[in-house]
């Protein structure tokens, strides 16, 4: 297992995760521009933490990047050939009305994994996320923390090149938050590009490789985490870090 992980780490340093590119991307609804226009490229290994006050457009940015929404202007593109494999973990996990393991085998079936291989992959992922004992439990009666871990396990079995997480810990207790953060690191080590929103500064400090700072639908900063937290360049980010209210 260690050698396998070492191999993965080596692989992730050899070929950095798929780069994401926003070119003049904007999203408006009913004549009101909710995001952008913004341009940036994610080439650094990350994890990329998208930060900013409520209503800044963090979730919107994630949905545009993932393709859940189409930009009304501009273009979202990826490096390399074709569209990379992607997964997303939502603030409130959306789980099917089936057992935990069936939620995973369903995701595998959708991705055309042969029937025979599904159950084994699903059980492996459940074990990795500490849900083995819950395999047969209906997903919707799991605790909040378990549900989010199951959502992460579902993303894990899909072996995505890119993983989006939208405030994945905002409804969880400290122990569950820790489990989610550990999982995020594991994805990162496996070479998955992480793009995650949070409004929790401490969490961002623990996880971030680089930070995209949004306020009022505009990107104010995109820098390495260290320099962002030590010496934010924009007035808005300074205020946000200092814990002030940002317009």
């Amino acid at each position, binding site marked *: 297992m260690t050698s396998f992980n070492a191999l993965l780490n080596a692989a992730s340093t050899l070929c950095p995760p798929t780069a994401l590119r926003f070119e003049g991307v904007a999203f408006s609804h009913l004549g009101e521009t909710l995001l952008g226009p913004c341009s940036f490229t994610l080439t650094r290994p990350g994890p990329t933490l998208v930060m900013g006050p409520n209503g800044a457009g963090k979730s919107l940015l994630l*949905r545009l990047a*993932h*393709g*859940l929404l189409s930009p009304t202007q501009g273009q979202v593109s990826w490096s390399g050939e074709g569209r990379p494999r*992607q*997964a*997303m973990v*939502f603030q409130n996990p*959306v789980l*099917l*009305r*089936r057992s935990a393991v069936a939620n995973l085998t*369903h*995701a595998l079936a*959708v*991705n055309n994994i042969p029937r025979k291989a599904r159950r084994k992959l699903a059980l492996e992922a459940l074990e990795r996320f500490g849900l083995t004992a819950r395999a047969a439990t*209906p*997903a*919707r*009666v799991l605790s909040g923390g378990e549900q989010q871990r199951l959502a992460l396990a579902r993303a894990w079995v*899909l072996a995505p090149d890119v993983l989006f997480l939208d405030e994945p810990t905002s409804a969880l207790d400290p122990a569950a938050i820790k489990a989610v953060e550990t999982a995020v690191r594991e994805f990162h080590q496996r070479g998955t590009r992480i793009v995650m929103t949070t409004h929790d500064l401490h969490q961002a400090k623990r996880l971030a490789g680089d930070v995209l700072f949004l306020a009022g639908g505009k990107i104010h900063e995109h820098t390495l985490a260290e320099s962002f937290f030590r010496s934010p360049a924009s007035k808005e980010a300074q205020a946000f870090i200092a814990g002030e209210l940002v317009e």
Partner: protein
Amino acid sequence: MENNAFYVALSLLMNLDAALFQIVALSLQVSLLAVLAAALLGFPLGAAVALWRFPGRGGVIVALNALMGLPPVVAGLTVYLLLSRAGPLGELGLLFTPTAMVIAQFVLVLPILAALSRQKVEELLGEYREQFISLGMSRLRMMPTLLWDARFTLLTVLLAGFGRASAEVGAVMMVGGNIDGVTRVMTTAIVLETSKGDLPLALGLGIVLLTLVMLINAGAYVVSELAKRRVG
């Protein structure tokens, strides 16, 4: 005593009256077959209308909702015209057979199952949509997942359809003809006995019919409640 409807119902059941047994069996057979066939077409149809956006979609939804109230005699008349000797399907010789009755009830039940399943599936889709798109699912692939995950609400929908089918009399009377031993079902027998003036027998048959429908509903309720508690 013989004029008491409950006594008549009870003695009909106690004596395992052969004629009654045949009527009950045919009633159940016709209605269950009709509902099953309507579900096989109606559930995917309802899910499709919930999933796809196409011109005239609003019209289809209004039509389905309106047809839920289709008068049984109108459905009966339509099927009668189709199956009668001069009709387009007259060659098949289906008029006044149980098959004709199944077809008539199918026509009655289909809009109920399609319209209600459209509503339920659309609600569920609202909850699942982003996750489905995230998983890269096509609309066609979403359909079986939604139908399966809506299984408990769809069971209730199925019962509504069965209630409609087993209770109606107009359609089966017109296309079945209430022929003794061939196409006589509970509701048509009740109409006949009432017009003959044998009110206790008519009422007795009514009680038997009601009991049967209640038993089926109770069974389905228990099954779905148990399953719901398990699946959450």
